[in-house]
């Protein structure tokens, strides 16, 4: 079986396979052009007689749970990434699989972190065939060098949720880390020794997987409530001493950048939002947890105080900064899909206006409405952009895959999507003629903000008009590019082979671009 076969050019002009890991796939047809007509995932039908009468589903070890779940060659195993770079669970699963002699598994995490580097040895030995979801850090590097047996499959957060729910990605066994659970498997991420926030990425896994295993290091007496994951969807409960490395679990906490250039970018973005008339009483916006995004929030917060206005809602990445804003009356609500830091966790637990949300509610293409569409503005980072406003966030300019998509593609549905980037990194220009990998089509990127000026997508005549006399450095993107090329020199294009190693899926499940093997 070829990893990828029968390539064609899709609607974005990118060469993509139509057969991936033996399965037929649909090439990208354009934004909002693909309308699926089939019905969704059909999970295995269980019966109550198969489960203990006392509802106690605790088994001794994860190994027991995996064996009882019928772990065998070729299965797809899912995990979530709420324990970030401190996660132990994913590594345990594949160590056990190796011990049991199981081969050709597919790992479907919601995101991978450098702590998952030990899985490389299982990819090499054949225990894991390929990864679907997110590949970054050492795993991305491994895949980029063409060493993964199967083709990597990159999905956005919303895209993964959709794929699980609509049957594109069938999960055999979902192994779901929870900070607290009862014996029945009612579980959440807000109680227990190591709380992490909402279980937003995993609900669909627990509903649609053939078997669901809860792994926790805090067993509570029944009922464990809130029960974000319902015990009635759970097959087994495993209790361990420590579910992750506490120091690295919290390493995702974030701070406002101190870099003067990044602060300048954030400030331009904030001023643009104000000049464009987007900053007004009742605004809704999404605030990332990265340093530049937080600085943007900081500037917007200052302006809201000065103008005496407040937001209706913020979507997080919730952090201390967002919580402070709510406590100071600068927003009515926080919608929380991922929580960073203890202040945000206790707010989520105790403040009814700090609302946990499911990925389905904000990002999913199959939802009947999306919170992200309500957002007046979203600020995102990027590895590369191009003169046609296309954006890349997964590969670097040398073609190596180093980041997951995260919510990047999903955020494109906001009313105004801003990409905030420096114009160069280590002499390598960030604005290209053409992005190395297409992750977001240019028609959806509204504004690119750099430390050297602001470029507005020509399609957004409304924004161009609104900010024309703002005094902000609004420039043609080609003009900024020329300045940077003059400074940095024009880099030679990296040599990429014609061997596909991964694909980028668009939010609707069609194939947007191919990631090619990097020549050593």
């Amino acid at each position: 079986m070829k990893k990828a076969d029968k390539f064609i050019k899709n609607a974005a002009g990118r060469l993509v396979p139509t057969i991936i890991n033996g399965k037929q796939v649909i090439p990208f047809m354009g934004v909002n052009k693909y309308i699926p007509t089939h019905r969704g995932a059909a999970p295995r039908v269980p019966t109550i007689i198969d489960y203990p009468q006392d509802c106690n589903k605790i088994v001794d070890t994860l190994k027991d749970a995996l064996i009882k779940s019928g772990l065998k060659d070729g299965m797809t195993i899912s995990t979530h990434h709420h324990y970030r770079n401190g996660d132990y669970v994913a590594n345990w699963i594949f160590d056990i699989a190796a011990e049991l002699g199981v081969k050709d598994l597919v790992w479907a995490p919601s995101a991978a972190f450098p702590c998952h580097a030990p899985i490389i040895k299982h990819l090499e030995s054949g225990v894991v065939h390929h990864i679907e979801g997110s590949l970054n850090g050492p795993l991305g590097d491994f895949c980029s060098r063409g060493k993964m047996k199967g083709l990597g499959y990159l999905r956005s957060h919303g895209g993964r949720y959709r794929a699980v729910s609509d049957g594109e990605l069938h999960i055999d066994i979902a192994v779901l880390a929870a900070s607290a659970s009862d014996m029945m498997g009612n579980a959440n991420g807000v109680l227990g020794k190591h709380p992490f926030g909402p279980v937003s990425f995993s609900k669909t896994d627990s509903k649609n997987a053939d078997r669901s295993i809860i792994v926790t290091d805090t067993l509570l007496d029944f009922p464990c409530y809130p029960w974000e994951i319902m015990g009635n969807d759970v097959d087994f409960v495993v209790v361990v001493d420590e579910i992750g490395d506490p120091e690295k679990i919290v390493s995702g906490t974030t701070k406002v950048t101190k870099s003067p250039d990044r602060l300048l970018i954030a400030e331009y973005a904030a001023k643009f939002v104000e000049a464009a008339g987007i900053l007004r009483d009742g605004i809704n916006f999404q605030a990332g947890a990265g340093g530049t995004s937080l600085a943007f929030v900081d500037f917007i917060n200052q302006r809201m105080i000065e103008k005496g206005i407040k937001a209706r809602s913020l979507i997080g990445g919730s952090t201390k900064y967002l919580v402070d804003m709510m406590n100071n009356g600068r927003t009515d609500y926080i919608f929380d899909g991922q929580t960073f830091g203890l202040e945000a966790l206790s707010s989520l637990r105790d403040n009814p206006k700090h609302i946990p949300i499911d990925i389905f509610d904000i990002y999913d293409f199959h939802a009947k409405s999306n919170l992200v569409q309500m957002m007046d503005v979203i600020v995102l980072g990027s590895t590369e952009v191009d003169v046609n406003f296309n954006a890349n966030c997964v590969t670097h300019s040398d073609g190596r895959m180093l980041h997951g998509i995260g919510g990047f593609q999903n955020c494109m549905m906001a009313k105004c999507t801003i990409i905030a980037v420096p114009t160069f990194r280590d002499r390598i220009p960030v604005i290209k003629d053409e992005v190395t990998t297409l992750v977001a089509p240019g028609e959806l990127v509204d504004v690119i903000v750099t430390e050297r000026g602001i470029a507005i997508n020509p399609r957004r005549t409304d924004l161009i008009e609104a900010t024309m006399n703002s005094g902000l450095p609004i420039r043609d993107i080609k003009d900024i590019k020329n300045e940077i090329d003059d400074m940095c020199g024009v880099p030679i294009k990296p040599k990429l082979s014609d061997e596909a190693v991964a694909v980028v899926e668009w939010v609707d499940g069609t194939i947007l671009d191919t990631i090619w093997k990097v020549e050593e």
Partner: protein
Amino acid sequence: MAKIASAGNYGPKIRSDCMVTIELTDSGGVHIELISKVKDFFGDHIITLAQDELKFFGVKNAKLKIEDQGAFDFVIAARIEAALKKADPSITTSYLPEIKSHCTYTTSKDALRRSRLYLPGNSPKLMLNAGLHGADALILDLEDSVHPDEKDSARILVRNALRTINFHGAEKMVRINQLPLGFEDIKEVINENVHVILIPKCESKQQVLDVNESIDELNKTESPVYLMPIIESAKGVLHAYEIASASDNIVALTLGLEDYTADIGVTRSKSEAECFFAKSMVVNAAKAAGVQAIDTVFSDVNDMEGLFENVKQAKAMGFDGKGCIHPRQIRVIHKAFLPTKQELEKAQKIVEAYNAAKKEGKGVVSLGSKMIDAPVVKQAQHVLKMAKIGGMIQ
């Protein structure tokens, strides 16, 4: 004779710089080794640059190693030249990058100098985007921020930076070393579109004259090079007026309080009360000589409120500008130099009265029952100018 020498910086935390090591050999031709994080993109380009430069200097046999962290061409060229000149001090020519057209703008004697941002002369990373943050002036510093072993290397780097980087209209200043080392600095940068030379630890009129003599001898350009002496000692304070009035090309007088407080044997406090005399002297000397008075730097980059208060105080004393060491200080300084609402209203009334009097051909300007003298009108016009620049009025 030293046949091996290095110049530049390299390490995991270094960005936009490189370390160049050269060994001059007797035979075997030129060998270039490049370690670079941007090798895939610029490797061939960097090698060609190095080959061209060695050829220019007539080097036929050498081992050259470049350890690069994304340095721009002008930095790599400067590092090669510096290493080569260390290895062979007999070399006197310079390998000059082409002057970019954005580097050739001019300044004027009474240019605004509210903020002047210090940039360490041997750290290219901090120079690249320095012009984007709105400082009135930028100081490429060859003195205290440069290690004594790196003086030659920094001088070449600053020269290349002046020919290459777009500082977006900010006045370009170079702080030279104390004389006589400072003469070497003047030689390297004087024809490179530098606007103002800062003379550190200035204590006498003669030092200003010596600097001017050196400039006059070397300056091949039409545009004048201005001077800003820095008063940093008890003696300098007492000689402030003779220094400020030493020559026509002096545009401002400034002071350095770290060295001054050490010189008078006190510890510098947050209130800077112990420096009151020195500050007063500098303001008075500058104004008497008809030049600007510029206050020292505020070193706590995290204390923006403290900075704001400090600058308000400086403004109240008569200073026209303030030094800064971090781009985020610039806007705070500019804000603190804005006139207050009351100052603005008063200035508007005075200027209106002056304009009316001028229109009517009256020699005497009066506001209500008060006569207004020429210096008051001038001050009011300055307040309006500052208000306009700060966006307070149209």
